[in-house]
Every structure is written in C-alpha cells, then in structure tokens.
C-alpha cells in the first residue's frame, strides 16, 4: 500500500536559513551592488520592488580541482553528423571549443546574478547605516490629535445623527405603544366614505367615525419620532501617530554646483527618503531648486537640468514655506527638509536667510538637514552659508549640518546626522 503524503502545507522557505547564510557571506558584494543600484535609480524608485542584482563572485566561488579548459587533447562525441568523414578537419569554433559540446569544465562565472527581496534590500541598506534604535522610535511616535468613533450617545450635533439607530428605536417604541398604522386609518376612511355614500347602516357609520377620531388622537399623542429615539454617533479625541511625511529637497543648482556634487546630494536625498519611507505610510517628495530665484520642479529637472544665475538661499526657503502653506498643513504632515549646497550665498542675503529659517522654516520642520557638498578646500574659512547655519545649530534648533566630500562619506554622514535626534530625545 503506497503512502501518499501532502507536503504542500509544510512550512515554506525551508531554505531561508541557507539564504540568510548566503546573504551574510556575500554582504560586502551585495552592499556594493546595492549602492551601485541606488546610484542609478530615481530617488523614489529605490527599494520599491524586487531588485535583481549582480555581484562579483569572489569569495562566493566553490572551488574544486578541475582541469583547465585549454591545453591537452580531448575527444568529443556528438550526434548529428551530416557531411564529415574520418580525417576531415574543422576550424576551431570561436570561444575555445565550446561549440563542439565541450564538457563544462570550469565554473567560468565571474559574476553571480540573483534577486533580492525588497525588505532584504532595505535591511542591507540600513543595517549598514546602523541607525540608533531610539532615533527610530523617536521618529515613529510623532503624534497628532485625531478623533475616533466610540459608540453612540443621546445627544450630539444633527450632523452626527445616526439614522439607523434612531429609526430602530422609533419603530420599537411605535410597536410597543400601538401607534395606529397609516394603512389601518386609510382603510377606515374608505369604509366611512363608502357608508356615507350609500347612506346605509348609520349606526355602524357613527361607530366607525368615533373609532377614526380615537385613532387620530392616538397617533397625535404618540409621535412618529420622539426625542428619546434619537441617537448620535459618538466621537472621542484620540492621539494618533501621523503616518504621512513630506520631504523637501532643496538644492542649489547654480553653475558652481558640479555634477559630482549633485550626485552626492542625490545620494543623500535618497537615503533620507528611504529612511522616512520605512517609518511613514506615505512620503511625499517636494523638489525645490534655486539659483537666485527658486522654483518647485519634478525630480528629473531637479537633478539633471542646469541653471545659471546667482545664488540666493532665502527664495528657496520662501518657496518651501509657500508649498507648506498651500499643501502640507504642519498638523497633518511630518515635515522634513534636506538642503544641499556648495555653501554659496550672496552675503547680503544672509540676514534674511537666517530670519526666514529661524522664524518660519525651522518651527515647521521636524528635522532640517544641511549638507555641504563642497570640494575639499585647502584654504581655511567656512562658507557663508555654513557660518550662518552654525549659529542656528548653536541655538539648539532641530537641525544638523555636515560636509560631504566623497561618495564614501555619505553613509557615515547620514548616520551621524541622525544621532542628534537621539541625544535630544
């Protein structure tokens, strides 16, 4: 008697442990690949879906003794001869004898391709950053007053009248008190009418008329809807985490910003986006570029178009303030801002910039990050903007600033930037 066993309900992912071991083993290569991908993708595309990644296979080979694929002699027996006779010669096929069905001696793979699931991808991304745990909770418990349904009440505003409940109460009361039904009264009316016309049975007519009056009185005494029937939906205010955030990316796009600098900025924005995206259900992105004028643009324009002009920072801040006022009420949105610049600002603009930051922007923001992507300078002295912002940071605003010179700096700086949040907590 054969055993037939259904194994389909057995736990899946039997090889999960192996996969985790593999990912741990290939962590360095995978991280490199992940970073490489992050450079190629749009900010919002990163980590959206399964990523197919290709990693170099060093450290992942499974070496074994095997013979070289070149040198020596070998014999191949293959089917499908059409024209050859013994002794014929055949030109060597391109690619070292592979065409004649050479046995696959070598592994011959320099690269290894496979897909990473989205959560694995992001884990890798952030594991590397090693964000402090507290910073995460700090960010995720941001709360807002919300209202929530909490049963019914007998009083309330007409707008929150619960019709179903009210009518149910009304019906049961009417049944209990035997309020005359409309059909009954109508039937009685018809009968009275018929008797009146025929002029017969005057006694019965009189009795009917009396009954009709009693019914009318009764239905007047027992109202269709009584105030005691009324039920209202009850709402109670409850604290609720805000599950949406908006991230403002501000960038100086004047001629002094090179492509390299923009690339650094893009990476930084992307990290911040992913970071927020892991914590909020919904993250909006707003791109504001500025020269001496500022405007809100889409992502492609933001990163890839070139502008000329002077450099004024305050218009960008004003633009951000306008967007917030129009679309993102601070009570409903967690607002984050990241500004990237080479530190240029027309000196005369500095007081205005400071004033706008201090008075408008910083109170709006949960966090404001400024990164300066300047090339390393030999000559001392901080940039205009850096000097200005230093004063704000010193004043204890939710703000941080760092300098980034190389790609490699991005991750440490990002990590570093989020440490102040922890300390303030």
């Amino acid at each position: 008697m054969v055993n037939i066993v259904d194994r389909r309900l057995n736990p899946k992912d039997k090889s999960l442990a192996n996969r985790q071991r593999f990912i741990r083993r290939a962590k360095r290569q995978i991280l490199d690949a992940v970073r490489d991908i992050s450079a190629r993708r749009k900010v919002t595309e990163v980590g959206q879906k399964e990523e197919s990644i290709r990693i170099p296979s060093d450290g992942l080979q499974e070496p074994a003794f095997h013979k070289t694929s070149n040198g020596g002699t070998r014999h191949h027996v293959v089917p499908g001869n059409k024209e050859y006779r013994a002794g014929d010669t055949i030109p060597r096929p391109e690619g070292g004898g592979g065409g004649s069905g050479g046995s696959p001696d070598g592994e011959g793979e320099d690269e290894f391709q496979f897909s990473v699931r989205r959560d694995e991808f992001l884990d890798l991304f952030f594991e590397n950053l090693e964000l402090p745990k507290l910073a995460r909770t700090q960010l995720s418990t941001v709360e807002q007053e919300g209202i929530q349904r909490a049963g019914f009440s007998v009083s309330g505003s007409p707008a929150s009248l619960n019709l179903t409940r009210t009518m149910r109460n009304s019906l049961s009361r009417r049944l209990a008190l035997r309020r005359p039904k409309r059909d009954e009264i109508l039937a009685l009316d018809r009968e009275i009418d018929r008797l009146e016309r025929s002029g017969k049975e005057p006694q019965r007519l009189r009795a009917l008329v009396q009954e009709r009056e009693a019914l009318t009185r009764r239905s007047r005494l027992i109202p269709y809807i009584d105030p005691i029937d009324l039920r209202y939906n009850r709402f109670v205010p409850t604290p609720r985490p805000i599950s949406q955030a908006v991230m403002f990316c501000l960038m100086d796009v004047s001629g002094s910003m090179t492509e390299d600098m923009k690339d650094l900025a893009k990476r930084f924005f992307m990290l911040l986006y992913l970071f927020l995206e892991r914590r909020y259900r919904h993250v909006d992105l707003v791109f504001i570029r500025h020269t001496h004028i500022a405007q809100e643009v889409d992502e492609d324009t933001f990163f890839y178009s070139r502008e000329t002009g002077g450099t004024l920072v305050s218009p960008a801040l004003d633009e951000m303030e306008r967007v917030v006022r129009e679309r993102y009420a601070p009570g409903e949105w967690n607002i984050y801002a990241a500004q990237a610049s080479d530190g240029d600002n027309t000196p005369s603009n500095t007081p205005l910039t400071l004033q706008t930051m201090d008075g408008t922007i910083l109170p709006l923001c949960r966090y404001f990050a400024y990164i300066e992507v300047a090339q390393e300078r030999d000559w001392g002295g901080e940039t205009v903007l850096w000097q200005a912002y230093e004063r704000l940071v010193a004043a204890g605003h939710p703000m941080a600033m760092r300098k980034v010179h190389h790609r490699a700096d991005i991750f440490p700086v990002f990590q570093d930037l989020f440490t102040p949040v922890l300390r303030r907590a």
Partner: protein
Amino acid sequence: MTRSLEADARLLYTGPDWDYRRVRKAFDAIERIAIEEMGLNPYPSQVEVISSEQMLDAYASMGMPLFYRHWSFGKHFARDEMLYRKGMTGLAYEIVINSNPCLCYIMEENTMTMQTLVMAHAAFGHGHFFRNNQLFQTWTDADSILDYLGFAKRYLSECEERYGADAVERVLDAAHALMSHGVHRYPRRSPLNLRREMERERERQRFEEQNFSDLWRTLPRRESDGEASDPDLDARRRSLGLPEENLLYFLEKRAPRLAHWQREILRIVRIVAQYFYPQRQTKVMNEGCATTVHYAIMNRLHETGQINDGAFLEFLHNHTNVVFQPGFDDPRFSGINPYALGFGILQDLKRICEVPTDEDRNWFPDIAGNRDALGTWKTAWAEYRDESFILQFLSPRLMREWRLFSILDDADERELVVEAIHDESGFRQVRKALAAQYDLARHEPDIQVVDVDLAGDRRLQLEHRVLDGRLLDAQSTRMVLRHLANLWGYPVRLVETDAHGDRVLHTHDDVMPDGGLL
C-alpha cells in the same frame, strides 16, 4: 453502449485533474504492471505532493528532503529561483530520493497523466535501478540515508551553537572544495585478523621456498630501483596508508591539528559525497532505465484501456520532449541528453533481443535474438555503469541513427580533426570515445596524497597524474589547496606529473595554511 461503459469502467481517470483517490488508483495499476508483469524490484515508495516553491527548496539542497545548512545552498537557491521566476528554466517534473522507502516527489501543478507518468518513472524506474544496480548496492545505504542526514543536520547545528557559525562554515567550505576527491572509488579491503594474516605469511614463505632460485641473486640491479624502494619512504607510506586518493578520508584520519568535531564534519561531507557518487556515474543508465520503464508501463496502461487516447497522446508529447536529442549544429544542442541516450540504447537492445539483424548477431552474439529483452535490461541495469554500459551495448545501428562522430581537439593543432564517424571502420572508436566521456575517472583529475615530510615541516605532498596533457586550472587549484592546507595545518605542495609519475610537468607553489581554521 455496454461496450463503452465497460471501457469507461476500466479507465483509471479521465480529464486532467488529479485527486488522492485517482493517484492511488493509478499507482496501484502501475504497481501491478511493474511488479507482476515486468517483475521489477523497487523499494516500497512514498509519494509526496509538493508545490513548485518546495521543488525549488529541494533543488537547493541537492534534492534531499533534509540537509545541513550552508551558504552555498542559499546561493544555488537564489540562482534557481531567479532563473525560474524569469522563465528561463522550468522545473523538473519529479525528484526521487534513493532511500528506503523511496521518496518520490510529484508537483501539484501537473495533470493526472503527468502524475501517472512521474510515478511510473520515479517510483518504479528509478526505484528499481536504485535497489538493484551494484554501484548503489555497494556504495549507498538506502535504509539509513535520511536518518544519517538528520543526524548530520543536527550535529552541524549543534556545532554552530558551540563553536560559532563561522568556524563551522570554514570547515564546510574546505570540505566542499575537496568533495569531488572525497570518495572511495574501489571497495576497501576489510582489515585482516591475526590468524588470517599469519596464514598468508606462511603461505607466502612456502611459495618463496618452493620457487627459490639462487640465480636471481646474480642478476645485476637496475639503477632506478634504489630510489623506488627507499625504505624510509615505504615505511612512512605504509604507516600513513599512502598513497591515498580519498583526500577527505586522509585528512579526517591523519590531519594532525583538527579538532574532533572538525573531523566529524569532514566525515559527514565525505559520506554525502560517497552517497552521490553512484548517481554521478549512472546518469545515462538511471534515466534510461526510468524512461524505459515509464514508456513500457504507459503503453501497457493504454493497451489495457486503463488510460484513454487523450491521456496517451499527452504522455507521448511529454515523452518525446524528454528524449529529444538535437544535433550538434542545432542551436538547442547542449551536449548529449542522458534520457535520450539511455532510452535509445535500451530500446535498441530490445530490438536486438527480439528481431536482430546479421550485424547485431555479429556484434552481440550472446544476446542477439535471445527473446528476453526484459531479462537483458535487468542484467544491464544491475551490473553496469554508464561507461561500461555504453561500451557494451551501444550498437552500430544506433550510432548510424544518431549519426555520432568523434572529434579530436588537440590544443596544439590549429584545427579540430574528425577522428571517426558512424561507419564500419569508426564504430568501435566512436563507441570507445563516447564511453570515455562518461568515465568519471577520466574527467576528474587523479590526485593523490603521496608523502608527508614527517621529519621536516610536515609538508603534505600531493601528486596529480596528468592525463591527455591537461593540467589543473591554476586559479581554482590554488583556492582548493588553500582549503587543504588549512585542514592539514601545515604546508601543502602539489606536483603534476605525467601519467606514469616519471616526469614532473608542473609544480604548484607551496600553499601555507592561513590559520583560518585553528
């Protein structure tokens, strides 16, 4: 009307859908044919229904239902999964495990006809082969393999807990690198007991006394003899059991610096390698046997009206796909299809047994026309492996049909040469060359431990006897030697010599252990 009703009653199933009742009914019908009519002798089987995900899982751990954990299986899974998701490869219809009872996986997506085919193929075809082939009988223990793998998995996870996952991983990496050289190719002599030993000694003495001739003493000695019989070397070799080609065995028993649990891991890997060794030598025969069996059974089911014409056509469609062999110049060509070759030879064998031609009588005098195809098959399945099977049973007619020809690829020549084709003068050469393609001993480099420098720095000396002038791949060899040195604990040297061990062709640099294991 009654006729068709009767016919319907005989049918095992209609339509594509399967359920347990039908699978069981089909299995019983197949079993009747396989056991009663064909006289096969498989292990009892257990049919397990799995999903495609689980099939991928099974792929990753060498097809075994349970296995120890290692990153390389995760790597294979990642690749298989991606290839499958992207539609670049399909999945196998079945996996069958050489165990007792024989585990036979069938996939839920398949139609009833496919399930029938798969059960005939796996449970009875492979099952019979596993149980009766002498290689499997010699080298594998179907009764205990699953228990052993369970033990291995437990043992390794205990080691991971006790010594750290990294330490275990390093030993496994090293052991896997040597896995292809961790098998015994020949049955080992069981140790002699003292009484037998003394008897043999007496016998040897008697023989020498009887054959004593003082003349031998007067013969001049050859120069080279002095070196070959270096008494030190001989004694050392004897005490270490050298030369030894099973590198994992040697390390497990002799490596001076391994901890007990590390030796046990080597042993586990070695036993797994040994378990799979017969499968690697019998790919053509195993698949040929299973394909032949399912072909016979499905035909029989159709003849006896147990499956209808539609199901039979579906079967034929799948069957022809399985045994399809494109020619060498076809874009679909990727080597010889073991299913096609095995099935082809066995069907041809049947023809030789039943309706032989003069050529067959000439080539196969002992079986031509013996009218016992089944018996001939069974003998072949029991006694041969791929290499000897092809050498013995590939007929001229099949070579002509397949238009097989042999090419010589000499790296020193500019062009490839067609050595032999499917004609009277070429049959034997083509057959020999094809058989050699399936000889693992020719494919895998012949590497042996030959000496250990016990008095000096304990260097381990390995020797590769080069065949056909094909040296080892330098890069991967270096990596394997590094693993080997780590296991041995002292330097390792590999010398490549010609087939007789006379001339050194290449010496690899000494590889030092990097201390990763200790």
